């Protein structure tokens, strides 16, 4: 049995930020929770290695690769439930702001690999090379996906202002 010391503590501390990373991929809190649990199960199996260094980066890579490899197929259909879940209350008064709703809609409209690239590159702060390696892509492909995703995000009126700020005229 491999040593799992520290895994529970890590999950307790990192859960909220990792869940936000999963949300960038899924744009849905319930799917994000399920994706994160899946990633943590995989991390648990490799914890002595994952926990030595940067576990956040490890989990985020697992999130991205898991999401890219089967996530779309797994959730193509509806999962039957006995009862309809209660809708989540807003997490804060700004939950339903135009920007956040627009961001969710914009992310949901992106192809999954573009979302994975955005999450690793800009949310997890990986380099282009590291992003490419994590996803099994070429660096040029990462650049291309980024450019396409940026163009798609800028096409949305509700968030395009944020993406124009700071850009060189």
């Amino acid at each position, binding site marked *: 049995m491999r040593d799992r010391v520290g895994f529970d503590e890590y999950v*307790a501390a990192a859960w909220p930020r990792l869940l*936000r990373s999963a949300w960038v991929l899924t744009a849905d809190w319930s799917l994000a929770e399920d994706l994160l649990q899946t990633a943590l199960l995989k991390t648990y199996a490799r914890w002595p290695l994952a926990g030595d260094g940067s576990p956040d*980066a490890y989990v985020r890579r697992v999130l991205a690769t898991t999401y890219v490899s*089967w996530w779309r197929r797994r959730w193509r259909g509806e999962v039957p439930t006995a009862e309809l879940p209660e809708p*989540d209350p807003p997490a*804060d008064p700004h939950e339903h702001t135009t920007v956040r709703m627009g961001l969710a809609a914009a992310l949901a409209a992106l192809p999954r690999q573009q979302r994975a690239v955005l999450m690793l590159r800009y*949310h997890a702060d990986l380099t282009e090379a590291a992003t490419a390696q994590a996803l099994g892509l070429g660096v040029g492909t990462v650049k291309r996906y980024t450019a396409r995703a940026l163009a798609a995000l800028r096409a949305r009126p509700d968030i395009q202002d944020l993406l124009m700020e700071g850009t060189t005229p």
Partner: protein
Amino acid sequence: MTGPDDDRALTRLLTEHVPDPPERLRRPPGSGLLAARLHRRRAGTAALAAAAVVLVTAAGYGAAVTLRPDRGGPAAPTTPPPRTPANHPIEPVSDLDKHGLLVMLNPGTIDPTDHLLRVGLEHRGCDDYTLHAVETPATVRLFLTGAPVSGDCDRVLDTIAVRLQQPLSNRHVRDPLGQPVPVLHERDRLYPGYLPPGVGDLIDLQPSRTTSLGLRGQGWLYTADNRDLTVRIRQCFGSPAACGRSGDVVARSTVHLHPAEILKSAAHVTPQLELQWEANGYTFTIGVEFGRYDQDEMIRQAQLIANNLY
């Protein structure tokens, strides 16, 4: 392409504007729930095996059991989704199919405690696959069926499992085309016990026998890196000749008393060294890639990783 301003804008958008989780999700489910989920995955697999389709086969063959793909994903819904149209046979192909995507069974592992045989499945994502095993005293023949799924096809790496009725023992595993599918005892699969400082992000790729993952031959590839160093660890079935060598021998050493060669690759833009040795029917290769070429340091790191495989 994007520039620095674009990068800053995207970083801000995807950090500052990503919402906080709703209250009910702000705490993790706890290790108990995660452990229960792990158990549920295994139990779900067993339940599916119990409800498996039994295929009546030609004389001399035994019954077959089937399992749904095990993608290491969330627990399956308790009610299986309707599957129409019915499953149709899928034959792995050795070349690109009409969609330009692969359907291929890759090497696998066997867990002796529950006779669960897992193999890699590289497919086109156009079907929802099920693996079947037809067992004889000498062989285990694997078959795939699939039910079409809607949406665009895309290349997917899966692990797919089937529970055998009898221990695998010395029986050979073959794919639908009769080609051997190498199967490794789970306990023989080695994991790195040491990685250089700062290299902690290990990606365990699916088993493969294609060149698409950078793996020649058949086996497993792990890759780990930080911004300065990339490490690739391959465990390949067969001899170095079958698994491939990349470069000229620049030095020799030993790993756990097995003769090893250190190869300098000329095929990569970034300087790369590989430490390669053969043991117990496998070829192990530790590849290290530095931003700058420091042969002594690269050999030292590769040797440390090799000495600490477990």
